[in-house]
């Protein structure tokens, strides 16, 4: 019964997500391109880019929610996959600059000319071909996640240990990409892009196009994640999250299930990064900073882990909040972000969507069994309820 109802609820939610995304995909370009600039309803290109950025963050949050919310794997290094996808896209965009660089070299990007390199390193070959670059956007994070996850899950590295080594992974990559001789532009990263698939990257139309593509990617990512968590495999993932040892004892190869979602999640993060780079116009090693990855985790926590739609909502909401706050009170942003971490984990452990779903579920249960002696929890006392559960878990 409950499962049936849950499905019903999440379909409601999913429909809401799809419709919202569709409306955004139509409305944002419309108000940017069709409504004339003088009009009060005109949306500036800056806003389009900003919204596009939020959508990329939402996709990253979605990827995180898939592993954290449904499989209990807390990654503190998803920024690494995001940045690797971004670098793959950045390499394509660098190759597209061609002879228009400051040094005018037809093949080599400016920073290589500056470093006195004579020819393109082998790992830059092929990035002038768009399909190949797009393949790499998915493959590079995917392969790294596969190698890392294969080793980690096989030897049953779990919980905080896993979280810490994901953080070490992204930290190692941060250090590596800061080096000039890695061939990725050192600490300046890749920037000064000119065009993508022949379209001027600065033009309004391209920006709107990128926005639509991002929305499409987000919707596709959402559909993929929903398909995974709705399948039988998804049920096993939930079992792994809640009691991994028992699941293993039942005969499931839990490491393979984990590896599968882990790699899918990394690929999604890579796509998010790839869409992010042409819109912000730069990718540099600071994207690997462990702090970024942890910040992404709080998006999911705010929206509600294990709800997918919540991750999208959290990714967008927190970043809108950040944009506003860093503009208004920049020196207090870290206070606000820190407080967000503390308050959400303490007071809103289910996140926004999770809490809403929770009460709706309770409501339905109550209606279904009017005279049953359920633990009744008054909605106006959410704190005590959360605490009770914590104490139960702690004991």
């Amino acid at each position: 019964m409950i499962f049936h109802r849950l499905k019903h609820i999440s379909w409601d939610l999913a429909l809401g997500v799809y419709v919202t995304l569709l409306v955004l995909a139509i409305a944002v370009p419309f108000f940017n391109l069709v409504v004339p600039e003088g009009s009060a309803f005109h949306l500036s290109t800056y806003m389009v880019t900003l919204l596009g950025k939020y959508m990329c963050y939402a996709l990253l949050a979605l990827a995180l929610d898939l592993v954290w919310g449904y499989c209990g794997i807390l990654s503190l290094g998803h920024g690494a996959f995001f940045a690797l996808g971004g670098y793959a896209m950045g390499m394509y965009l660098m190759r597209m600059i061609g002879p228009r660089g400051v040094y005018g070299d037809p093949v080599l990007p400016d920073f290589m000319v500056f470093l006195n390199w004579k020819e393109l390193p082998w790992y830059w070959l092929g990035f002038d071909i768009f399909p190949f670059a797009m393949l790499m956007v998915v493959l590079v994070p995917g392969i790294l996640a596969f190698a890392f996850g294969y080793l980690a899950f096989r030897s049953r590295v779990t919980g905080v240990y896993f979280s810490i080594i994901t953080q070490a992974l992204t930290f190692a990559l941060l250090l590596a990409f800061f080096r000039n001789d890695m061939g990725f532009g050192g600490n300046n990263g890749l920037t000064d892009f000119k065009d993508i698939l022949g379209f001027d990257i600065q033009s309004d139309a391209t920006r709107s196009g990128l926005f639509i593509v991002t929305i499409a990617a987000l919707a596709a990512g959402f559909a993929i994640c929903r398909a995974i968590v709705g399948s039988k495999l998804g049920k096993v993932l939930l079992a792994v999250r809640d009691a991994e040892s028992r699941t293993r004892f039942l005969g499931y190869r839990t490491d393979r299930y984990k590896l599968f979602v882990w790699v899918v999640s990394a690929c999604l993060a890579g796509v998010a990064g790839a869409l992010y780079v042409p819109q912000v116009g730069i990718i540099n090693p600071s994207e690997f900073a462990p702090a970024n990855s942890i910040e992404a985790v709080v998006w999911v926590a705010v929206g509600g882990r294990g709800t997918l739609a919540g991750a999208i909502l959290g990714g967008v909401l927190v970043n809108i909040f950040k944009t506003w706050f860093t503009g208004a009170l920049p020196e207090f942003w870290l206070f606000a972000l820190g407080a967000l971490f503390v308050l959400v984990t303490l007071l809103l452990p289910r996140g926004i969507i999770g809490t809403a779903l929770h009460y709706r579920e309770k409501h339905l249960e109550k209606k279904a069994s009017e005279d049953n002696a359920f633990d009744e929890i008054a909605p106006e006392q959410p704190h005590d309820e959360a605490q009770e559960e914590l104490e139960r878990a702690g004991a």
Partner: protein
Amino acid sequence: MKPMRATIRSVLTAIALCLALATPLHTSAAQETVPDGPTTAPTSAAETHDLAGLVSRLPKASYNEKSELAGAIAETGNPRVELILSSFSAGRLQATKEGRVVIALKDDGPYEDALTGDKLGMMEGIRLKKVRVNNRLRGELHGLVARLALSSPDASIRRHAARETFDAADPDSLPSIEKALSRETESDIAETLRQARAAIILKNGVVDEEGQLAAIETLRDRGDLEALNALLGLDKSDNLVLRESAASAVRSIKRTLEYWDVAQNVYYGLSLGSVLLLAAIGLAITFGVMGVINMAHGEMIMLGAYTTYVVQQVLLAVAPSLMSVSLIISIPAAFIVAGGAGILIERTIIRFLYGRPLETLLATWGLSLILQQAVRTIFGPTNKPVVAPDWMSGAFQLGQLTITSSRIWIIVFSMIVLAVLMAFLKYTHFGTQTRAVTQNRKMAASMGVRTNLVDALTFGLGSGVAGIAGVALSQIDNVSPNLGQSYIIDSFMVVVFGGVGNLWGTLVGAMTLGVANKLLEPFAGAVVGKIVVLIFIILFIQRRPRGLFALKGRFVDA
């Protein structure tokens, strides 16, 4: 009685007179023979006279004559010779119209008599003329002064002079080296002198092949960079035997130097390891007992460092005389500040999150952001100066190793902290309870251990130790709001590598990572070295998911 006393007095006077008359003869005789020990600097009228004659001829002499005169002056062995010659080379030996030679103690006076050392004041109104000196002469004078120092009665001056003669490798000093060698009593100075002689021999080829071979051997035994440089000059020697012998000596020295290099890096590694140990030890306790990852651990270190700064500022204002012990005062202060903050965090946040380690991780991360920003707001974003006490600054040489005092102190300090903590956990009641909770929380609770209290106090203890680490780190790192962040990942690596619930694991983990980091650095560079270590840990975790010193048994949660 009275006449008796008078007689004795007159006899004594007579003896004294005789002695006074005899002394000049005696000393001039002694001068021809080489004294057995370092010269004890007898002053006598005759010597001064002799010296006076030589010095008074200096102003009017030609450069060639000056050179001879300087040699003769050095020969007199008068204790003022060194000052006269060094003033001469510095252009401070000056003469009046009457030919009196004076020394300018500073550029424009005051002056003193070159021979007697009588103070002459500023000598205003008297025209002085410099005793001129040229570069060749100056070089000779330097050599003369160094050679004089070789016969100084003070061993430390002789030691210094011996080193200088080695560095200069001037062939003219060979006779005085031989002379000094024959009467040198300190074995290390004699050794340096032999090496100096060897270097001169090799440089100038002044003796036969056999002597040169012996010289090569002497230098090979010295085995440092200077010896290597002296030997490298033989590469182009025509003598095949010599060249091969030198080449083998060079190889041997290079090998020795490599060993020293490794030793130096191991020392750096141990020093880095003890820093890591200090940073990680508190984390190991809290993680071991509660399974809680405290991401704000680095900020506890930072609080300790800032406490050190505040303590110094307060002492500077209130009791400057206590500045030399400010660090010792800071240790309990930092422990209380950071420990108090830790207990506060545990009571207000972490206790609500037990059983949910991932959420704890996020909440404490948020807390670390708040603490960083709070410190930045209060103290400003710039680095705060923390003064090192005298007994912690400086460095000394051990063989070819350079050992800085502050690093040695940190190694010692980290060992003390480790020992105290271990003893505390092993022998106190609270320590026993802590270990019980680490091994099996439910069982400990059933036996009447108040796990809540143990949690709070353990968290306070771990944070307090982090604060103490901050005191130590304030000596070698910048006291800035980001201080903690730079150690947090490394500390985690140490804990993960060393295993949880065992401080030996933390020690071994910290030292291994520290030494591995520093040994990799020369080959791979600092950044790549760090990456290699990180990758190594990631791979290591595959083999031993619970670290080097994992708890074993049924109570370990799978």
